[in-house]
């Protein structure tokens, strides 16, 4: 009946690009997981309950992370022997017509993003219960955003980068505004959206200019058109490519919130739901840095002398300004926002070092990767504690709200202390080695001035973290506060709420609700922050754990393609 009569036109089918599906699994699991979750919860309302989406998301992140192992084994072997995947015509270690790069760097960043998704899903579970929100949308958007992040980190073509960036960002904008009952959340989402869209515009215009200058959007093509390639005039269209690089850098600087493109960060971090901020500060930022590193360290490598000073300027401004402005804050989420700007500066310094043509390059790339991992874990954990302390309504983020945390929940205070010390770069925590590696790489590159600036910034920012720690541990001498806590203690003590019911028993007063939240945090959230603290400590005590992976991934970044 249908189309019984085939047309007799003789047409030659175009061959599709070869796709090595087995190497795409880490990305596919995240993306398909998100799609599956939204479909299943749409048609089976029973599964919309709060535990299923959280468990599903954790499992998806875990599965994606585990699927990295075979990919790593295959990629690592190829890195060593210098073989190719796919047809081989589109450059080594790239799939789908050179659009998607699979190498050690991709694998590493994907792993970090999976960690971020896993921890954030645990945090979200408790948060959504406490706020009385439901809906699998949060998890779906997070998975989508994460898959976009993986795409951005693996993109071997500027167009694919842009796709990844948009998938990453658009989901994040929505997540920031998803707490529909809080005006602050809406405001944060809107600000994030407007500024993010601006950044995307910069990015896209940069792509257009680079394409105009080099005639290619693939990273290989841009690299090959560079002055290093034989037989090319070093100054071909150089103003065009400089403008293109500048715009791309601005686009990325917005995404990773580097000074002076950081203005959105404190407002958005303050207003957006705390677990979402944990993801934005970790997963989204990591993906942004991965994209930045891949595009600049590989495609624009021939122009390294041109863009390196710009990176250095952004980095120094971010570290110093981020640290200084953080000191002026009283809202802990704002403080942490500035601290994340400060961290962004350190990671930019690592990229600066990695751009070095000599020995500093490898060390810089290693420092960047280590920093990404350490930062993801500790920032997720820190915002996790902020989520718990924020209480119902997610509004208690003043420094005063952390007073006496060591008394009301010593475990939470201890975990927070570890995470904050790590952020400050205190020895025996991962943060120390992260900063140490960055400064070491700068030193071996000969950039002593930048190294000095980094150390200065580290000292400045340490004060900020100490302020929070002091607030948690030193019960202040103000009588009023003491009395307050006594009263609240009495309220909560009389109640003796069992842990499981802790979140549902809050009708008495806002004070009591906060206390319940702090006294008996959601077990999943507690698990997440404890995991984060544990990893921070382990990485701090055994910094060379899996050191081979780090150096292989780093060399993949520098050799990519």
């Amino acid at each position: 009946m249908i189309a019984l009569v085939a047309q007799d036109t003789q047409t030659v089918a175009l061959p599709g690009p070869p796709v090595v599906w087995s190497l795409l699994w880490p990305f596919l699991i995240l993306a398909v997981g998100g799609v599956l979750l939204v479909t299943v919860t749409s048609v089976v309302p029973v599964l919309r309950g709060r535990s299923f989406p959280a468990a599903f998301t954790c499992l998806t992140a875990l599965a994606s992370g585990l699927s990295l192992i075979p990919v790593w084994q295959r990629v690592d072997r190829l890195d060593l022997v210098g073989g190719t995947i796919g047809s081989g015509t589109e450059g080594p270690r790239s799939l789908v017509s050179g659009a998607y790069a699979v190498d050690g760097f991709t694998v590493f960043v994907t792993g970090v993003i999976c960690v971020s998704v896993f921890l954030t899903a645990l945090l979200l579970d408790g948060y959504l219960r406490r706020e009385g929100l439901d809906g699998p949308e949060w998890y779906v958007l997070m998975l989508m955003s994460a898959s976009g992040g993986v795409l951005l980190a693996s993109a071997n073509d500027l167009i694919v980068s842009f796709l990844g960036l948009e998938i990453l960002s658009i989901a994040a904008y929505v997540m920031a505004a998803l707490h529909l009952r809080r005006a602050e959340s809406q405001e944060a989402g809107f600000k994030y959206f407007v500024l993010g869209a601006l950044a995307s515009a910069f990015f896209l215009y940069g792509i257009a200019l680079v394409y105009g200058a080099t005639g290619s959007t693939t990273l290989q093509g841009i690299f090959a058109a560079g002055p290093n390639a034989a037989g090319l005039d070093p100054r071909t269209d150089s103003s065009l490519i400089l403008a293109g690089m500048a715009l791309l850098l601005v686009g990325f600087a917005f995404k990773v919130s580097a000074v002076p493109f950081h203005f959105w960060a404190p407002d958005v971090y303050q207003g957006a739901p705390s677990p979402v901020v944990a993801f934005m500060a970790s997963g989204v930022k990591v993906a942004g840095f991965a994209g930045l590193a891949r595009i600049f360290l590989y495609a624009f490598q021939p122009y390294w002398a041109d863009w390196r000073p710009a990176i250095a300027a952004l980095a120094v401004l971010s570290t110093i300004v981020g640290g200084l402005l953080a000191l002026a804050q009283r809202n802990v989420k704002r403080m942490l926002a500035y601290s994340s700007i400060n961290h962004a500066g350190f990671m930019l310094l690592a990229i600066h070092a990695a751009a070095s043509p000599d020995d500093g390059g490898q060390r810089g790339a290693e420092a960047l990767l280590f920093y990404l991992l350490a930062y993801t874990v500790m920032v997720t954990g820190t915002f996790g504690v902020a989520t718990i302390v924020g209480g119902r309504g997610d509004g208690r983020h003043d420094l005063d709200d952390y007073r006496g945390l060591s008394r009301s929940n010593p475990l939470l205070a201890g975990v927070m202390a570890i995470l904050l010390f790590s952020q400050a770069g205190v020895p025996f925590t991962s943060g120390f080695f992260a900063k140490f590696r960055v400064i070491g790489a700068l030193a071996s590159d000969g950039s002593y001035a930048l190294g000095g600036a980094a150390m200065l910034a580290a000292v400045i920012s340490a004060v900020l973290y100490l302020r929070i720690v002091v607030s948690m541990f030193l019960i202040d001498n103000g009588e009023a506060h003491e009395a307050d806590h006594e009263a609240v203690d009495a309220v909560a003590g009389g109640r003796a709420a069992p842990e499981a019911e802790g979140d549902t028993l809050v009708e008495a007063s806002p004070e009591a609700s906060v206390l319940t939240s702090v006294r008996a945090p959601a077990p999943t959230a507690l698990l997440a922050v404890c995991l984060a603290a544990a990893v921070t400590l382990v990485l701090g005590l055994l910094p060379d754990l899996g050191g081979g992976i780090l150096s292989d991934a780093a060399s993949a970044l520098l050799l990519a393609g």
Partner: protein
Amino acid sequence: MSLLALGEPYLSDGVDLGDVVLTVVKVVVAFVVLLVSVMLMVWFERKVISRLQNRIGPNVAGPFGLLQTLADGMKLFFKEDLIPERSDRFVFQLAPYLSVVPAFLTFILVPIAGDFSDGKDGSVSIAGRQFFLQVADVPVGILFFLAMSSIGVYGVMLAGWSSGSKYPLLGSVRASAQAISYEAALGLSLASVLLISGTLSTNEIVQVQAGEGFRGIIPNWNLITTGFVPFGIFLIAGTAELNRPPFDMVEAEQELVGGFHTEYSSIRFAMFYLAEFMNTVTMSAIIVTLFFGGPAGPNFGVLPGWLWGFVWFFLKLLVFLFTFVWFRATLPRLRYDQLMDLGWKLLIPLALGWLMILAGIRVAQSGGFGITDSTQVDTGIVLVVGLAIGVVAALLLSSAVRTSRQDRLHRHGLVEVAPVFELDGGAPAGEGHH
């Protein structure tokens, strides 16, 4: 069919004076044909409706009342033209243009005659110039049709919005929601036609359909080669796009007085009226072109070949003009939510699914899958798998609809009740007293 060969042969290499003259002649002929056809269509509709309602209909002006439309049109010139004081004057005056001009332009796509038998391309030669018997065979053909129908929506929407009155406003909001809802279904069902034809040009779509059909008896019309469903969707969506009954929510007299053109009078009203009927004629012609082979048909001699094309085209057109009138006389108007449900929850998914299955079958027929050695076995496999996926998709969709309904019931504190007829049947089960 290379891309460069698309379009009118006489315009493909430069334009000289003769080409311009030919173009002007074609345009003027098309213009006159359109206006006359609208005149006749209005008469036809009134007459048919009357007969279906056991009335006589117009029979005074001219033979059989043929000139009734003309008389009505003339009358409107002498009516007072009012522009309501609360209206947005500029937009109010612009809207009729936006409605009537696209209605004219859509007609360029329709090949109204031409000899398509034996693989001919339907062109005619006069004074060494080869041309098609349609106003213009633009390469983007079908896209032009969609563009014009979208612009037509602006006319209706702005007319209602600029009137500064509530009934037109409601009518125009409904109109735009309805039009864009059905445009998606319309576009998706069109995609099936494009899949079979492999071209956007209406002339070539007709050429493909003029080819030899199944066993030489059944014509190779897209109606059959796309498997009937896209035609059904197109007919329904097209009726909705035209705002004709049973989808005439836009001017539902009982609720909205006259809908979007309530505030229009005199010649401005005439323009909307004209556009509406012109669109009906054009839509019928487009349906004939896309699904029923347009002017393609057997050539029995006696008349010149191109005239046979016109005869076939006219007969097919008449069927659809009658169908639209028949719809109006027979079908009660849908309620607004039924209309939107039909469009979004049935037609769009159906059109999309059908397109995918059709494409799968076509690729399998050309050996694209290569599952087995035989393309026929491949086609069978693809058909079975495609239908299975279709069933799963339908299940997903229906459970999504159920979920949404349940949520709504829950939100409004309602319960789905089975009617309780038990009046005095003793105690309800499970209580066990007495």
